[in-house]
C-alpha cells in the first residue's frame, strides 16, 4: 500500500524514511565496532532526551537544538573518517561532539554554562569545540561554517603538501543544514573548494526543514540537490541518513575517493529531526502523520534489529547497554550540576591570546587539560 506523506511533497524527501529494513552488516568491520556505533547512537538519543528535560528545568538557557532522529548521520560519518580528519558543523552539534569522542560531561556542562564545559561555559549549546578530537565547532550563523570548513581543508592540504612536501592525506567533513543551502557563503565556499581542489565534503543534513520552512519552499531543485555540486564541478551522492550502515558504507567510499583525489564532495544526507527546531517549536507546519512515518524508520531501532538478527547482540545485551548510557548521562548531569559556574575573571580571559590592557590571555579548558595528562 502506498502511503502519502502530507506536508512534504517533494519526492526527494518521500523517497526515504519509513519502515524500510536496514542494510545488512558491512563486510570487514569487526562486530565490536558496530556495537560501539550502536552505543554511540543510544548515547546521543539519551543525552538529547535529558537535554530537553534539563532545558525545561531551566538548567540550560539560550537556543538549544537537539539531534534526535539524526543520530545515524554524525555517528556514521565519524566512523567513515579518521581521527585526524577535521570536522565542523552548525549549531545542532551535540551529536557530532559525542560521536567524535567528547565526553558527555563536558558537552552537558557546556550547556549548563559551567567551567567544566568544553568551552568553559562561554559557548553554549551551539558551540561545541573539541581540539583533541578535531572538532572545530559548533557554529551559530547559518552557513558561516562552510567557508571555515573549506579553510580547514585548505590547511590540511597546505600542511601536507607545501610545508611537509608530501601528498594531501586528510579530508574535512563540513556539515550544514538544508537551510544553509541558500546562504551565499556556501556557494562561495563550494566554488573555492572546486577551484582549489580542496578535500572538503559538504554534508547537507537534509532533514527537510529549516525551522518551519519545508525545503522546497526555500530551495530550488530540492528534489535533486546534486545539481548544486555539479555547478561547481564536483561529485555528489545521496545517502539514506536514517540507516547507519548506509551512512557508514556510502560515506566511507565517498570520503576515501575525495581523500585520494584531493577533491571536494557534496552529500545530500536525507534525515529527519523528530523534535521541534529548537525548544520552543510546536511544529504546526507539519503533520503528526509525517512524523510517524519517519519515526517508524528509526535508525536506532533499525540497527538494533540487524544486530539482534545477526546474533551480535541479544535483548539482554541491548537492555544492559541502555542502562549503561542512562547511567552515563545521569552522571554527566550530576557532574555538570556540580561543576562551578565560571569565575567572573573568565570574562576577560580567552578574548586575546596575548595579554594586554584588561585581557588576561588564554588557557585550555579543563577538558583538554585532562586529556593531556
Amino acid at each position: 500500500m502506498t502511503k502519502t506523506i502530507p506536508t512534504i511533497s517533494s519526492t526527494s524527501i518521500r523517497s526515504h524514511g519509513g519502515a524500510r529494513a536496514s542494510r545488512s552488516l558491512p563486510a570487514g568491520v569487526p562486530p565490536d565496532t558496530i556495537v560501539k556505533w550502536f552505543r554511540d547512537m543510544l548515547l546521543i538519543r539519551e543525552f538529547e532526551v535529558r537535554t530537553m528535560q534539563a532545558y525545561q528545568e531551566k538548567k540550560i538557557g539560550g537556543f538549544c537544538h537537539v539531534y534526535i532522529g539524526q543520530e545515524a548521520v554524525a555517528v556514521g560519518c565519524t566512523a567513515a573518517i579518521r581521527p585526524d580528519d577535521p570536522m565542523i558543523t552548525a549549531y545542532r552539534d551535540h551529536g557530532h561532539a559525542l560521536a567524535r569522542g567528547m565526553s558527555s560531561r563536558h558537552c552537558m556542562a557546556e550547556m549548563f554554562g559551567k567551567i567544566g564545559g568544553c568551552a568553559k561555559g562561554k559557548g553554549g549549546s551551539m558551540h561545541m569545540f573539541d581540539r583533541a578530537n578535531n572538532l572545530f565547532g559548533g557554529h551559530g550563523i547559518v552557513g558561516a561554517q562552510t567557508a571555515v570548513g573549506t579553510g580547514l581543508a585548505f590547511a590540511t592540504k597546505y600542511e601536507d603538501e607545501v610545508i611537509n612536501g608530501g601528498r594531501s592525506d586528510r579530508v574535512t567533513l563540513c556539515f550544514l543544514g538544508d537551510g544553509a543551502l541558500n546562504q551565499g557563503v556556501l556557494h562561495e565556499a563550494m566554488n573555492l573548494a572546486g577551484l582549489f581542489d580542496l578535500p572538503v565534503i559538504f554534508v547537507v543534513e537534509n532533514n527537510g526543514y529549516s525551522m518551519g520552512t519545508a525545503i522546497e519552499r526555500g530551495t530550488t531543485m530540492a528534489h535533486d540537490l546534486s545539481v548544486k555540486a555539479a555547478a561547481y564541478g564536483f561529485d555528489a551522492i545521496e545517502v539514506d541518513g536514517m540507516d547507519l550502515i548506509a551512512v557508514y558504507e556510502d560515506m566511507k567510499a565517498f570520503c576515501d575517493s575525495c581523500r585520494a583525489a584531493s577533491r571536494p564532495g557534496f552529500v545530500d544526507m536525507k534525515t529527519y529531526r523528530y523534535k521541534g527546531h529548537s525548544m520552543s517549536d510546536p511544529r504546526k507546519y507539519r503533520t503528526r502523520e509525517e512524523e510517524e512515518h519517519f519515526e517508524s524508520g528509526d535508525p536506532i531501532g533499525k540497527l538494533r534489529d540487524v544486530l539482534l538478527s545477526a546474533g551480535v547482540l541479544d535483548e539482554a545485551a541491548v537492555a544492559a547497554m541502555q542502562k549503561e548510557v542512562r547511567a552515563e548521562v545521569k552522571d554527566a548531569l550530576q557532574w555538570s550540576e556540580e561543576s562551578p559556574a565560571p569565575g567572573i575573571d573568565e570574562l576577560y580571559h580567552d578574548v586575546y591570546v596575548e595579554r594586554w590592557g584588561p585581557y588576561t590571555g588564554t588557557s585550555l579548558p579543563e577538558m583538554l587539560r585532562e586529556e593531556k595528562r
Partner: protein
Amino acid sequence: MSATAVREIEFRDALREAMSEEMRRDPKVFLLGEEVAEYDGAYKVSKGMLAEFGPRRIIDTPISENGFAGLGIGAAMMGLRPIVEFMSWSFSLVAADQILNNAPKMLYMSGGQFGCPIVFRGNDGAGGQLGSTHSWCVESLYANVPGLKMAIPSNPYDAKGLLKTAIRDADPVFFLESERMLSMKGEVPEEEYLIPFGQAAIRRTGEDCTIVSFGRPVHFAMEAAETLAAEDGIECEVIDGRTIRPLDLDTIVASVRKTNRCVVVDQSWSFASVGSEVAAQISEHCFDDLDNHVHRVHADDVPAPYASNLEQEMLPNPRKIRSAVLSACYRA
C-alpha cells in the same frame, strides 16, 4: 655618510618587504586575495611575490570576500598564518560575518581552544573620487569589536614594522592601509625591525595643544601644526596612534596633561567613532587637566561624494584641524 644613509622606499614596498620577510621566515605564512598573484596586486603591493613564492603561497582568489575571508579563518584555526588582502576595506563589508563574527570570537567561543592568527589588510579611506561605496573608513565600524587588533600605519617605516608584528601576532589583526599613501616614500632601514602594538609615536613635540590622529590624517595634522607654529604661534604636539586596538592611552594622556588641550583627528564619521572614544577616554583621564573640551575633526557626517571639491571638503584637512586647534586654544 653614505654608509649610514638610510634608504628610502615606497609604502607599498615596505608592505611587500614585511610580507616577504615573514614568508621566508615561516612557511605557515601565505597571502590570499583578489589579484594578488598574476596581476601583481591590484595596487602592486605584492608585485613579484608570485615569482618568489609560487602559486601555492601567493593565491589568487575569485571575487568572494566572505568565502575567502572564511577560508583564511579556517586555515588560521588549524595553525596557519594567513594574510588576507582586501582590495579595499570597503569590500570587506560583504565579509562582515566572517571577519567580525568568526575571527575575533573564535578563541572565546571555543573556551581557549582555537585562536585565529590572521591578518586582514588592504586600503582604507578615501582613494580619491571613488564615491561612497568605495571610500569607507572602517576603523570606527570595526574597532568596536573585542577580540581583534587594529593597526593603521602613517608611513613606510611603520607600515613595515607594524605589518611584521601583525603577521606574528597570535590574534586577528585588521591592518588598514591607504591607497593615497602607497606611493609615499620614507626611510626604511635594511635591517630587520618590528614595531610593537600599543605604542604611539610622537611626531612633533609642543606645549600648547595635543593633536591625536591615526593613519593618513597624521600628515594633515603635521601640516596644520606647522602653519599654527608659523602663523599663530601655537606649538602642537602631534601623536600618531599607530594602533587603535590596543590604544596607547598612556602616551596620549601624558601629552594632554602637559598641553591641557586636545584635538582628535579621525577620518571616519564622528558618531560612535574612534574619535569619540579617544575623546571620551581623555575626558575621563584628564578631566582636571583640560582647559577646554576635547575637540574633534572627522569626515563630515555625509556619504562620501564624488566631486573633487566636495570630497576634499568632507575629509579632515589641515584647515579644519587648524581651526579646531585655534578653538581649543580659545583663539578662534
